[in-house]
């Protein structure tokens, strides 16, 4: 922040003032805490605290390391490689690399947008989030101690994140870190950076494009069936909304908006609807290959992230011209920003070129709508899915070799379905459609060159075409006013928790899973928040009344709300909400105080994340970034491929000692939350687990009672039994689910040897600890009275 030297002052070109030190004006909104802009060592005490209680468990995904030319090293059995690193270290290193990739994606995206937005609007766009938000950027305030006032201020966040990413990537180099613990600590650091980068990335688009906020944002269309195939269709795919916004602006300015469909896949889809309620959402990542293959799109515009690497080839297959608009994903295409729009349109429309890159969003906007109009006409007679005859021929061709089943990440029984289809029964194949993640790996190995993805889609065509659902527009941050309403019940536990449904679409058993999870918790008056693929995929189902989840439940951050926060970068507002509980409800200082705030959340805010289809490295950094702020995360079974989990041990209660801030005493607590990141095999397993992970040491009796009730109900509902750990959460009879209190007391007496006074129906002996309304838990020594 200090800058010395000679400066020229605008408008006073001939005056030079020698300035010793420039202090940018920064009102003292809060005193600065101990860890502003932390280096990893500054926050290491917190990271190590988490790792001590939730030690890493490794499930190596590969027994070798191939990262340097001493390799490959065989590390099987925790052997050391030529550099001295052992298997645990290597797995943790891989986690760190993945997190760096993920955080770089968020930061790279945000920084790129910031440049564009400053070009478009100047750096002075004020940070104005309306009257209901004062704590505008809770992560930024906390981590770097800065309160952004204008667009340009967010550069500080990216500066910090970039420097730190380089430092952490540095540590992944061969011959650097040697302990899995310090690799994990660094992964936590990167998770924290990731959360900051996301917040900055979403805020800059929000303030520049004036996205709507609050519970009352409208519902928009989602689903393949919503796309009006009578119009020219522009399909946008990715995460960076800037070229799409340019296209939409162009359509508006040229009175073409109603003539053309702008339909999106992945986060660009969500963010488009934040800008333009007419924009259509096709769906999440799982729909990408299949929607492209359907041939409906007349022009495909890709920006960055979550794009199929072979999108150019796929677009070509359906004769849709493709425009790449981002320097992260150029596919070897010529960059044509410098050429006249007409030339580019001509080259693409004539088929002279199948795809081009155009990095200038204005030029993209000039090219795409016109091109779409032309292509709509040209592509009229393009049939891309198999004809009935072809479909038959394909099915007949199947040799039943089973290669496709092996290649399928989900192991779907394509072979059998193909045989059934050949025999005239399309049903088994059409059932697979919903379980298929749309990856195309099956086609890669079919020696008979059956376009399996297309064949499957055709069997499900009717169902696909009828996909017309509603999704609430991504609404960005939780309002301070909402926090004021839910702060107390959340911390006391009477709102039993916040369930955050986030992440990608690599679901083990299809998209319906996320709908099930979200609805179960919404019905139970948890607050359900969602972003990204999860927010889209859960919209694809209806209740018995025919309502989608967004129609059934309100959109506010309130008990029983189902809140579409927004795209993947909007994830940060979920942390933001938890941080705001600490700030607004508990009046903790945020500035430079990350350890304290995360400690607050871990002990008090009953939130849990579920990244059921976590696929990417972003999901890795997102999950890590959720953990590091004190919120546990459950991933689907594919998540085991991230190689690590953070597993608490309820059989070693020494790990659960927490300080009472009031008197500095140590209190042995129940394991709440028990784990920080782990996987589950099925939703039925995940749901009770999530309920368990929402418990917190500070729950008051009625809060604990509610949480325990849900936990036990859900266990019985989905598992047919209770986990044997439930008594550990019982501090006194008042914690017990009311409806079955006696029954439970009996069990406690009989199976767990607790002493019960049956007259008063009070527990005399048994609980680990008593509930103490004065209990003010912390894991940080520095917060104890008398600590310096």
């Amino acid at each position: 922040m200090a800058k010395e030297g000679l400066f020229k002052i605008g408008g006073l070109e001939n005056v030079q003032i020698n300035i010793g030190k420039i202090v940018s004006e920064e009102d003292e909104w809060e005193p600065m805490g101990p860890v502003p802009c932390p280096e990893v060592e500054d926050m290491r005490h917190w990271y190590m605290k988490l790792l001590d209680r939730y030690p890493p468990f490794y499930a190596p995904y590969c027994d070798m390391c191939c990262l340097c030319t001493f390799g490959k090293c065989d590390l099987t059995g925790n052997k050391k490689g030529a550099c001295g690193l052992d298997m645990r270290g290597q797995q943790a290193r891989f986690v760190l690399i993945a997190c760096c990739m993920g955080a770089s994606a968020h930061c790279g995206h945000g920084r790129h947008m910031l440049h564009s937005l400053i070009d478009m609007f100047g750096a002075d766009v004020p940070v104005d989030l309306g009257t209901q938000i004062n704590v505008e950027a809770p992560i930024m305030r906390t981590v770097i101690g800065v309160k952004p006032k204008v667009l340009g201020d967010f550069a500080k966040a990216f500066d910090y994140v970039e420097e730190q990413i380089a430092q952490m990537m540095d540590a992944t180099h061969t011959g650097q870190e040697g302990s899995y613990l310090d690799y994990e600590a660094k992964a936590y650091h990167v998770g924290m950076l990731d959360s900051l980068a996301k917040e900055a990335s979403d805020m800059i688009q929000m303030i520049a494009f004036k996205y709507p906020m609050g519970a009352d944002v409208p519902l928009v269309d989602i689903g393949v069936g919503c796309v009006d195939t009578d119009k020219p269709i522009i399909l946008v795919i990715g995460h960076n909304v800037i070229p799409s916004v340019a296209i939409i602006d162009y359509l508006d300015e040229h009175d073409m908006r109603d003539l053309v469909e702008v339909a999106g896949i992945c986060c660009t889809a969500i963010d488009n609807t934040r800008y333009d309620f007419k924009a259509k959402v096709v769906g999440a990542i799982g729909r990408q290959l299949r929607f492209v293959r359907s041939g409906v799109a007349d022009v495909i515009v890709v920006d960055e992230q979550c794009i199929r690497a072979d999108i150019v080839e796929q677009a070509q297959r359906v004769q849709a011209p493709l425009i790449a608009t981002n320097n992260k994903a150029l596919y070897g295409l010529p960059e044509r920003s410098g050429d006249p729009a007409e030339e580019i349109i001509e080259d693409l429309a004539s088929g002279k070129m199948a795809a081009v890159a155009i990095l200038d969003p204005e030029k993209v906007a000039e090219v795409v709508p016109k091109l779409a109009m032309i292509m709509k006409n040209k592509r009229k007679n393009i049939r891309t899915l198999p004809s009935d005859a072809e479909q038959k021929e394909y099915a007949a061709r199947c040799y039943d070799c089973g290669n496709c089943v092996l290649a399928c990440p989900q192991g779907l029984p394509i072979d059998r379905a193909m045989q059934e289809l050949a025999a005239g029964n399309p049903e088994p194949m059409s059932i697979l459609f919903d379980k298929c993640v749309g990856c195309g790996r099956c086609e890669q190995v079919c020696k008979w060159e059956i376009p399996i993805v297309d064949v499957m889609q055709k069997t499900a065509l009717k169902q696909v075409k009828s996909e017309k659902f509603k999704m609430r527009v991504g609404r960005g941050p939780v309002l301070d006013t909402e926090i004021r309403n839910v702060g107390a019940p959340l911390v006391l536990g009477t709102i039993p928790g916040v369930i955050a449904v986030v992440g990608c679409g690599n679901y083990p058993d299809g998209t319906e899973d996320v709908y099930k999870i979200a609805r179960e918790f919404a019905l139970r008056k948890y607050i359900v928040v969602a972003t990204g693929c999860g927010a889209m995929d859960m919209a694809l189902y209806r209740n018995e009344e025919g309502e989608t989840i967004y129609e059934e439940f309100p959109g506010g951050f309130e008990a029983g709300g189902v809140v579409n926060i927004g795209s993947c970068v909007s994830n940060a507002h979920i942390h933001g909400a938890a941080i705001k509980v600490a700030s607004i409800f508990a009046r903790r200082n945020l500035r430079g105080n990350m350890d304290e705030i995360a400690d607050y959340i871990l002990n008090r805010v009953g939130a849990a994340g579920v990244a059921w289809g976590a696929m990417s490295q972003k999901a890795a950094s997102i999950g890590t970034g959720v953990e590091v702020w004190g919120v546990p995360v459950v991933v689907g079974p594919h998540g085991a491929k991230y190689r690590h989990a953070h597993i608490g041990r309820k059989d070693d209660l020494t790990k659960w000692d927490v300080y009472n801030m009031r008197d500095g005493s140590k209190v042995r607590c129940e394991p709440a939350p028990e784990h920080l990141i782990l996987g589950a095999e099925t939703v039925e397993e995940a749901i009770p687990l999530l309920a368990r992970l929402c418990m917190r040491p500070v729950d008051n009796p009625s809060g604990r009672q509610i949480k325990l009730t849900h936990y036990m109900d859900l266990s019985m509902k989905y598992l047919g039994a209770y986990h044997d750990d439930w008594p550990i959460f019982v501090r006194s009879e008042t914690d017990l689910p009311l409806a079955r209190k006696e029954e439970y007391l009996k069990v406690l007496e009989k199976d767990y040897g607790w002493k019960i006074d049956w007259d008063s129906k009070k527990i005399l002996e048994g609980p680990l600890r008593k509930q103490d309304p004065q209990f003010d838990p912390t894991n940080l020594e520095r917060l104890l009275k008398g600590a310096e």
Partner: protein
Amino acid sequence: MNTIPFDPGCVPGPEMARLADPRTIGIAIKRAKRPILVVGAEILKDDLIDKAIEIGKKGTPIAATAHSMKTFVEKGYTDNVFMCNMHPLANNFTRNDWMGFDGKGNYDVIVFLGVTYYWSSQMMSAVKNFATNPLRMAVSIDRYYHPNAKMSFENIRDTEQFKSMVDEVIAQL
């Protein structure tokens, strides 16, 4: 020539499961001091639950992961069935200080049946790499070739054949 994992990319490295026939695997379980059967979501398919119960009845305790417990309850067999989550369970297998469900110590032969392929594969990888001293052995009797196990069947397409193989394992117990 090489046996291909059910997920062909799931080639972990030089230590890959020995292909074993049901008899061999059955005998290995029989000879174990403290064997345990781990079942998961796929136990609900193809009546495998009945096989699991048979194994349980022959004295091998069962760790019921995912939501498999519900079916044990429905089937009325819960004697030596312990409901748990897989991740903490696998973590416990890698630790020498875990005392098992009965407080008598960790297990030595860990038999996987009815668990989603890639999920159990990862858990067996943890056992293979970290439960080495003393050696604890993951054994798969699922219908897949599981390289991260110590012993495994091949990929078996035919359900009846697979079930009869499991029967043969049970016959040894």
